[in-house]
């Protein structure tokens, strides 16, 4: 509560008049707001504001920081809902929004917006509606993307309000409707500018309904006359224009300008690059109304246009020139005596290279004006950009005005308009027009001055001056915003003009009043412009330009208007002005100083050319305009703005008239003084009207701010462009220099080339010379070469000749030698022949002698020849016989030889056969030998077996004997034991004896035994018997000795046993040596064997002899063996001994057989 109280205390203190306290409290609030995030304080502030409309609170509220915006919005939203507080809250909202708080983007999401829309849709109070619509219009460019959701709300509102305008369901005063109409008009512009497609489709659908048709005809259609076709209608779509991307890159002021661009309403329109042609067309079309209202200006324009040949003026001239204007024009031209020259100098047509500069309108008959206008219109289109190369800042004029105060201002302003399509001129027109309407019958020349004079009558000079200054500045700002060419008709300030009519009135009088001065003054600038166009150097002396900056305009505005208003004007006026938030802060300073900001001159430096143009134009135009007369003309359609404008002007005029009737001091005090107590209704209406006006003003101000923002940006662009231009120029210079260089280089190069060519030619000549020399030399050389060749061939020939000669010489020598040899031979032969001759002679002699002898012998022979023939024949016969005999003998011999040879062959074959046979037989023998060996081995093994058997038997027998003797015969005990021992010994011996050495043993034994036993066993038995005895056993010889005694003792039995033993052992030997076959081969082999053995016998002596003998005997023994087998029965042993007995018998047989053949 304490805090609450504290706050209310503070709030009350806010209105304190002490500046210090005010500041303190403001800071306290701000601190509080910074520290406290709750809604409480804001709510309190809002409440307080609604209660008191305190400016301080408003300031605090409008500068609220981020966290509190929500509270503020909520609070406003809350109050919007209540009908009672709706109006003030809406105005508060307007204030807040117009300042474009940093949180403005939140507006689209805030619940405030729908409630505002709802209020607009439902409310019936015109004041609230107008205020709300204005707030909405202000808000729209800030939240363009939110259009999506509320678009139809906007359209509905538009539809409702437009119909409202017509039908007036609330039956409010007409005057309100004018305001409402103006705001609806603004809304129309905004919506059409921002969402053309949607809006047009809405219009189409909404006004296709019959009930709305009237509204369309009456309200909407006229509005549509003031807009161009929006390009978006062609290129865009419903969706595209709602696309956030479209809005993203546009700032608020961009949106505002976008909307202004499509407007044909001079009070709204704004044009920038790329619109020139269309603008002109629209300008032409749109011109009429303005011209109608502002005929004097048209005249001035015309005159000026003629003089300057600006495109804008000319069309206008063509269109609007009236006979009545001519004198004025003329007069104006006379006044601006210097202008023509100036115009000619900088005319765009001349720049464009146009051959025929535009003729002055004065000279042109009205009939011809149209074609001309066209010509100029087109030419102007081109010319304008040239004429105003860059956006010229209008400010200079203002500054100029500002510095020079009112008189020059008034004069300067019009030209501005003319040149830059400023709004100033329309304003002026309007004022003049209004004055005309008011029935202030005055000549066109004086009209402006008359009205002006009227106005200043009420107002203090200072005020008016200030106001005008402010006004000018505003205009300047607007003109700046409209920077570029724009149509000449653009009159953006109309509403403001309406608002500011008091100031206009003030300003105009001022300007008009001082027009005398201005004429002289303006001439100064205008004169100066002349040089300016030609060269920039003269800018310096021109003071007017330097003062202006777009920035200081607000301050100016702020500074002046309130100052005057507050103190001197009626409460109404104060009310109007107080809301402007900027005013308080800067007022005093601005006012006090009344100077241009220190950086003004910088603009001059930065934009010298454009600025100068601008200024010069303006001055000229103004000069003309001042002289311009009004001309009433038909208005095809008046913009609601203008209607409002006019209404206000009228109201203001009426007001001033009324006020004029009163004494100054009482004027502000009481209404009743002059009209009694006014009807409350009237007062209310007036108040509301005032409020509406205020709202309108604020809206326009907002727009102006947007324009200013834009202006600044454009200015920056201008600066850049000029800088670039400068740069370009510099570059061009450089380029020129370089081109010069290049030229120089080219020249020198040509020179060098010439020299080079010369040198080359020289060189060529030298070369050709040398070549010819070389050729000559080569030729010489070849000749020499040929000569030498010839010589060489000659040399060769000579050599050949010499060789030939030498050969010939040799040959000759040879021949000589040969001859010599021949000679010697011949000589020898000669000698020989001589000797032969001698011999021949000798022989001849001999021959002779012999011949004689022969003859002698012949004689003798003939005597002896008859006796020898018989003897010879006999001898021949004997020889013949002898020959025959020999021949037969030879034959015989041959035959013998043949036979013997045959015989030899036969024998040889026989021998071969025999050899073969022998070989075969040898093979066979081998075969047989093998066979025999196998058999022999078998038999041997059998023999071995037999031997073993025998041993076994022996053993057994001895064993049995042993037993027998033991058991039966005691007396023979000793003998038997001996025998047993002997048997045992023998067995041992047998066991010891190796089978391998058995045969050898036997033979040795046999040898020994044979020697030893032959005497014993008797010679009759022969060698075989002795052999048998020897072969009996190896041990037999040893045994024989000990055995003998028992043998003898035992008698025949023992002896027989012995013999059997002996014979049995001998058997294998005999058998083994027996070849079984009786074949021829076998016999032969045996013979061979025998021979061998015989030869062995010779060597070995007796023993071997006996062996061979046995072999011999066996040949004959074989067949008899079996036959003698039965003889074995004599054997005393029983049957088991059969085998042995056979062997025994065989031996015995052998002996017998041996005996038999022998």
């Amino acid at each position, binding site marked *: 509560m304490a805090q609450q109280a504290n706050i209310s205390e503070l709030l009350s203190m806010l209105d304190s008049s002490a500046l210090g306290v005010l500041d303190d409290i403001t800071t306290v609030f701000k601190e509080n707001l910074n520290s406290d995030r709750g809604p409480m304080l804001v709510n309190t502030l809002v409440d307080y504001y609604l209660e008191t409309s305190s400016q301080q609170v408003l300031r605090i509220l409008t500068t609220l920081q981020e966290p509190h915006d929500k509270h503020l919005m909520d609070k406003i939203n809350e109050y919007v809902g209540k009908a009672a507080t709706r109006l003030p809250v809406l105005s508060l909202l307007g204030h807040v929004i117009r300042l474009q708080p940093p949180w403005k983007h939140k507006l689209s999401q805030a619940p405030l917006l729908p409630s505002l829309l709802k209020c607009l849709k439902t409310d019936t109070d015109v004041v609230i509606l107008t205020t709300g619509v204005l707030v909405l219009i202000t808000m729209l460019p800030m939240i363009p993307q939110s259009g999506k959701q509320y678009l139809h709300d906007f359209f509905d509102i538009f539809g409702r309000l437009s119909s409202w305008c017509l039908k007036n369901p609330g039956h409010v005063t007409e005057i309100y409707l004018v305001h409402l109409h103006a705001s609806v008009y603004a809304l129309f512009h905004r919506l059409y500018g921002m969402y053309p497609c949607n809006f047009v489709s809405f219009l189409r659908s909404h006004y296709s309904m019959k009930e709305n048709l009237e509204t369309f005809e009456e309200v909407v259609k006229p509005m549509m006359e003031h807009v161009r076709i929006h390009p978006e209608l062609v290129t865009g779509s419903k969706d595209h224009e709602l696309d956030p991307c479209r809005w993203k890159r546009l700032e608020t002021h961009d949106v505002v300008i976008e909307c202004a661009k499509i407007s044909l309403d001079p009070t709204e329109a704004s044009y920038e690059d790329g619109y020139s042609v269309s603008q002109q067309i629209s300008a032409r079309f749109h011109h009429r109304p303005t011209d109608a209202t502002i005929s004097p200006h048209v005249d001035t324009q015309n005159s000026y246009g003629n003089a300057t040949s600006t495109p804008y003026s000319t069309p206008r001239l063509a269109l609007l020139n009236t006979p009545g204007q001519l004198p004025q024009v003329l007069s104006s031209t006379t006044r601006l005596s210097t202008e023509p020259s100036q115009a000619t100098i900088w005319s765009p047509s001349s720049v464009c290279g146009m051959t025929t500069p535009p003729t002055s309108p004065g000279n042109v008959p009205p009939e011809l004006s149209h074609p001309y206008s066209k010509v100029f219109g087109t030419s102007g289109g081109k010319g304008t950009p040239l004429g105003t190369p860059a956006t010229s800042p209008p400010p200079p004029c203002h500054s100029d005005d500002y510095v020079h105060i009112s008189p020059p201002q008034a004069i300067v302003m019009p030209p501005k308009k003319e040149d830059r399509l400023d709004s100033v001129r329309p304003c002026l027109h309007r004022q003049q027009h209004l004055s005309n309407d008011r029935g202030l019958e005055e000549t066109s020349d004086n009209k402006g001055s008359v009205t002006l004079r009227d106005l200043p009558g009420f107002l203090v000079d200072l005020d008016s001056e200030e106001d005008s200054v402010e006004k000018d500045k505003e205009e300047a700002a607007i003109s700046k915003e409209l920077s570029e060419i724009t149509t000449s008709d653009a009159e953006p300030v109309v509403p403001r003009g309406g608002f500011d009519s008091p100031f206009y009135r003030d300003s105009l009088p001022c300007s008009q009043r001082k027009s005398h001065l201005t004429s002289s003054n303006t001439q100064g600038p205008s004169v100066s412009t002349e040089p300016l166009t030609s060269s920039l150097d003269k800018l310096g002396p021109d003071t007017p330009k330097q003062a202006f900056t777009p920035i200081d305009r607000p301050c100016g505005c702020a500074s002046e208007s309130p100052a005057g208003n507050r103190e001197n004007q009626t409460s109404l006026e104060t009310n109007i002005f107080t809301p402007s938030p900027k005013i308080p802060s800067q007022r005093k300073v601005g006012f006090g100083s009344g100077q241009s900001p220190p950086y003004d001159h910088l603009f001059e430096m930065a934009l010298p050319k454009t600025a100068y143009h601008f200024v010069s134009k303006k001055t000229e135009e103004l000069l003309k305009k001042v002289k311009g007369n009004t001309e009433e003309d038909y208005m095809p359609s008046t913009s609601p703005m203008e209607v409002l404008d006019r209404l206000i002007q009228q109201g203001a005029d009426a007001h001033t008239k009324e006020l004029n009737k009163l004494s100054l001091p009482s004027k502000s005090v009481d209404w009743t003084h002059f009209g009694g107590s006014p009807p409350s209704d009237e007062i209310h209406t007036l108040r509301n009207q005032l409020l509406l006006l205020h709202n309108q003003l604020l809206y326009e101000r907002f727009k102006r701010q947007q324009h200013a923002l834009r202006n600044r940006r454009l200015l920056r662009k201008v600066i850049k462009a000029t800088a670039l231009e400068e740069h370009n120029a510099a570059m061009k210079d450089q380029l020129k220099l370089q081109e010069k260089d290049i030229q120089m280089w080219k020249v020198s190069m040509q020179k060098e080339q010439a020299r080079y060519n010369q040198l080359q030619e020289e060189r060529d000549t030298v070369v050709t010379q040398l070549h010819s020399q070389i050729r000559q030399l080569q030729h010489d050389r070849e000749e020499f070469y040929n000569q030498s060749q010839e010589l060489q061939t000659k040399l060769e020939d000579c050599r050949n000749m010499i060789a030939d000669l030498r050969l010939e010489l040799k040959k000759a020598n040879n021949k000589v030698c040969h001859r010599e040899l021949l000679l010697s031979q011949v000589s020898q032969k000669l000698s020989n022949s001589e000797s032969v001759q001698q011999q021949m002679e000798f022989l001849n002699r001999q021959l002779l002698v012999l011949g004689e002898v022969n003859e002698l012998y012949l004689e003798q022979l003939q005597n002896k020849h008859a006796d020898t023939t018989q003897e010879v024949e006999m001898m021949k016969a004997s020889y013949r016989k002898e020959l025959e005999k020999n021949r037969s003998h030879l034959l015989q011999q041959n035959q013998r030889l043949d036979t013997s040879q045959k015989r030899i062959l036969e024998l040889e074959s026989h021998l071969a056969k025999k050899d073969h046979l022998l070989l075969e037989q040898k093979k066979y023998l081998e075969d047989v030998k093998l066979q*025999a060996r*196998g*058999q022999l081995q078998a038999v041997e093994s059998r023999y071995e077996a037999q031997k*073993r*058997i025998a*041993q*076994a*038997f022996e*053993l057994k027998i001895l064993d049995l004997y042993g037993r027998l003797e033991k058991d039966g015969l005691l007396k023979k005990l000793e003998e038997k034991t001996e025998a047993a021992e002997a048997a045992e010994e023998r067995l041992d011996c047998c066991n010891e004896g190796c089978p391998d050495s058995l045969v050898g043993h036997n033979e040795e034994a046999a040898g020994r035994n044979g020697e030893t036993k032959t005497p014993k066993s008797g010679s009759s038995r022969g060698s075989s018997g002795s052999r048998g005895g020897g072969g009996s056993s190896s041990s037999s010889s040893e045994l024989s000795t000990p055995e003998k005694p028992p043998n003898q003792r035992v008698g025949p039995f023992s002896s027989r046993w012995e013999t059997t033993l002996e014979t049995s052992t001998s058997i294998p030997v005999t058998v083994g040596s027996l070849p079984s076959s009786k074949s021829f081969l076998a016999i032969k082999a045996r013979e061979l064997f025998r021979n061998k053995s015989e030869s062995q016998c010779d060597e070995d002596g007796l023993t071997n002899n006996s062996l061979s003998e046995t072999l011999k005997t066996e040949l004959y023994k074989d067949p008899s063996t079996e036959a003698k087998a039965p003889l074995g029965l004599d054997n005393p042993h029983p049957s088991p001994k059969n085998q042995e007995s056979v062997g025994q018998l065989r031996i015995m047989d052998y002996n017998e057989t041996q005996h038999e053949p022998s």
Partner: protein
Amino acid sequence: MAEDTQRNFRSVYYEKVGFRGVEEKKSLEILLKDDPLGILPPHHESHAQVMMCRKEQYTDVLHALKVIRFVSDSTPQVDVYLRMYQLESGTLPRSPSFPLEPEDEVFLAIAKAMEEMVEDNVDCYWLIRCFVSQLNNKFRDSLPQLPKAFEQYLNLEDSRLLNHMKMCSAVTKLPYDLWFQKCFAGCLPESSLQRVWDKVISGSCKILVFVAVEILLTFKIKVMALNNAEKITKFLENIPQDSSDAIVSKAIDLWHKHCGTPVHSV
């Protein structure tokens, strides 16, 4: 070689397909032309006479044994063979009741096996006699070396098994007598034994080693399972007979692998 052309030209393919034994008989025949045992001479003409001799010798010896009452008609044929051999080698004990020598046991085992193979008593006796005498004469030096060779080849084939047996100290206690003295007589069935003996008769006593190795390899798992030397020996003395053919075939392969293939079997 002339004989090679006479041999079955498919022999090569038999072996490729895996019929190992097909050609053994043929090669044996070729071998036997030389009569490795010496029972019959190579000369055909004397066969009859020699066979008669053999027969007579057999009857003589048998008769003699009967006479001295070493054998009777009721005596088992194997004992008869033994007595006959003893008689022929002069080692006949004085009484048939005398205990048998170890070599006699060997003889008996071989005779038993041979008796199964051959029907004729004479042939059988001669085969036994010559086989045993070959073992005693020809292989007298090489037979004692066989255990060593056995160890060596077993090491080559399966050292783990050998190590296991060494661990069990069973190596020295293996039935070497059964394997190398009796030539697996009584250890392998006669059908398999024939093939082994064929090799032995042909002159290779090493085959015995490989048979032994193969037996161990075949029964490796069981042998490895046994930790006791006695048990191992006992098991090896009584190996199952069903896989003997495979054992012999593998042993022959092993023999070929280690000792190279004999020329005649190529």
